[in-house]
């Protein structure tokens, strides 16, 4: 599904990723953990195509196709989804209308007609129920005045609507209380299938109790320095990162 080889990336003059390799296959869940400033969010942004970051070396491919020359929206059309650590507020555009626009933009890019209104409505109803989102929430301006938990839930709602092949969850657990965490994790688990893949970026093992990873990687100083199974996350929770970084 996703193959990253020898990835180097910088923002302004700071080298952040320094030769990162990872391969994620369809049906897998990978967790990326690591200390602050290791480059976790940079990795997410670079895969999504954020132009603030410059890729200086290496390749990123999705299902064998090089993503380098694709804009963020073209990557989204290929099935890349990034749940933002800090979702952006967009006053004047409602949650419902934003997601409708996004879905139809993707369909258009893939040569399909707009989704019929009835079908859209049904899908919105199903997916919002999955994330226990109330109806009035959907007509509010996107992320404007949302609590941290509402923003994250809204991200996963959009993910559910867009049905991506590769979902990257960037610290989706930060700012969530245990109930919201359970709802969000439950949403992600329901969306998992043998045809898609999930990368969970987190500081804490807690989320991984709910979204159980097949692989856990430790990212430090721009590289993956250790990989293992889900038990690695428990070990990290207990011992921290210092023993690995030294």
């Amino acid at each position, binding site marked *: 599904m996703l193959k990253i080889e020898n990835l180097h990336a910088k923002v302004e003059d700071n080298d952040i990723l320094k030769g990162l390799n990872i391969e994620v296959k369809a049906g897998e869940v990978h967790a990326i953990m690591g200390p602050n400033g290791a480059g976790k969010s940079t990795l997410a942004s670079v895969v*999504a*195509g*954020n*132009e*603030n970051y410059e890729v200086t070396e290496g390749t990123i491919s999705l299902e064998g196709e090089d993503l380098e020359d694709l*804009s*963020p*929206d073209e*990557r*989204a*059309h290929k099935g*890349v*989804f*990034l749940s*933002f650590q800090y*979702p*952006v*507020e*967009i*006053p*004047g*555009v*409602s949650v419902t*209308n*934003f*997601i*409708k*626009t*996004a*879905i139809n*933009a*993707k369909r258009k*890019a893939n040569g399909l007609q707009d989704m019929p209104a009835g079908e859209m409505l049904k899908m919105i109803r199903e997916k919002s129920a999955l994330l226990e989102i109330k109806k009035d929430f959907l*007509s509010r*301006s996107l992320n404007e005045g949302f609590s941290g938990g509402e923003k994250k839930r809204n991200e996963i709602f*959009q993910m559910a609507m*867009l049905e991506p092949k590769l979902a990257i969850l960037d610290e989706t657990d930060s700012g969530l209380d245990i109930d919201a965490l359970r709802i969000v994790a439950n949403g992600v688990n329901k969306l998992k299938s043998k045809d898609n893949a999930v990368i969970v970026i987190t500081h804490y093992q807690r989320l991984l109790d709910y979204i159980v990873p097949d692989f856990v990687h430790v990212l430090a100083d721009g590289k993956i320095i250790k990989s293992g199974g889900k038990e690695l996350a428990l070990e990290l929770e207990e011992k921290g990162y210092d023993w690995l970084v030294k």
Partner: protein
Amino acid sequence: MSLQDKLAAAFKGDSKNATVENYKKEAFEAFSQKGFPTTKDEEWKYTSLRSVLKNEYGIESAKATNITQDSITPFLVAGLDSYKLVFVDGVFQASLSDSIEEVSVKLLSEAIEDASYQEIFKNKYNTLAKGFTSLTDLNTAFTTEGVVIQVAKSKAVSKPIELIYLASGETSAMLLQPRNLITVGENAEVKFIERHQSVANVATFNNVVTEVFVAKNGIFDLYKIQNDKDDASLVDATFVAQERDTVASVYTFSFGGNITRNNLSFYQNGPGCDSILNGVTILEGSQLVDSHTLVAHKSPDCQSNETYKGVYGGKSTGVFNGKVIVDQAAQRINAYQQNDSVLISDDATINSKPQLEIFADDVKCSHGCTIGQLDKSALFYMQQRGIPAKEAEALLMFAFCSDAIKDVKIPALKIKINQMVADKLKVNIQFDEIAE
């Protein structure tokens, strides 16, 4: 020969109405002394009329028009059941207009000669416009046509009235000076849509004056649509005098033209007034839109709400000057003013100036002014969800403007404005489905 000299030579000043004749002479005198405003005038610092005044304006005599219903259609609000009053080159076109029974409509040229209109000319006409600017005086001195509309007490007019002023000259540049007078009776309600549009193949200059009087408890809405050709300029002066407990709104949508100067003045003459001034300006090329607004709070317990949004591209220029005067008598008023601009090109300019003069102590006055660029993180967020960059930009700009559009009371007009915004931003998005 300069335009001012040419006008001096053409001035006649006679009228069948003594009041009007007096006003004409007085106004011509005032104009002769002041002349056209220049950028040396504080109020015209950023708006030069040089490109407008250099044209050779001909005095074309009224001729039969070849304007047809079809050529007007693009300038009307599609799907709106309205009363249309159409003027071409300053001449009323009965065949293109609707007759209106529920409201008294009289052409200015006829009202002047009508004895029953003596009173309105004495008590209302030119009482707000007199001496406002030299251009207002110019209009008073030279105007030949326009409408006098009176809405009777307690009459809620069933359809909006569309005032369409077309210019269709072919040989020399045209100077047009329509003049409107509107009175809204006690407890009456009426909505207007106003448009000045060139279909001419010469440059046009509209110098328009509209005076509106809203009697006790009346409701008045005026929507101005400005999307004229690049060689068409407009100086508009609209005055709204409000008696107690009235609600008056003026929306100005400016999407085109060469030089557009909007002078919009509200006078709250009784307690409990509500004034709404909203504007959306989206420009490109070398277009200029200058919005000079005045809210004169002269009475207690009133409100005013002013929201102007602008998106400036190319080498375009925006000017916003929002004046709020709160008299000592105007206690417990609430005046809100906000002017937000987005510059989408390095060569675009906005000059924004709030101007508050407050002489009362128990009041709430707020004003804000922001100038910025599109939020890059918001663009990335939208692109990440699959919305292409151009659409994302347009959506952000639309969302930015939506505060000044959302309360438009005529649904068909709202759709039209949304469509015009989409066209202006060159995207194919049905904003009306996106905006709440």
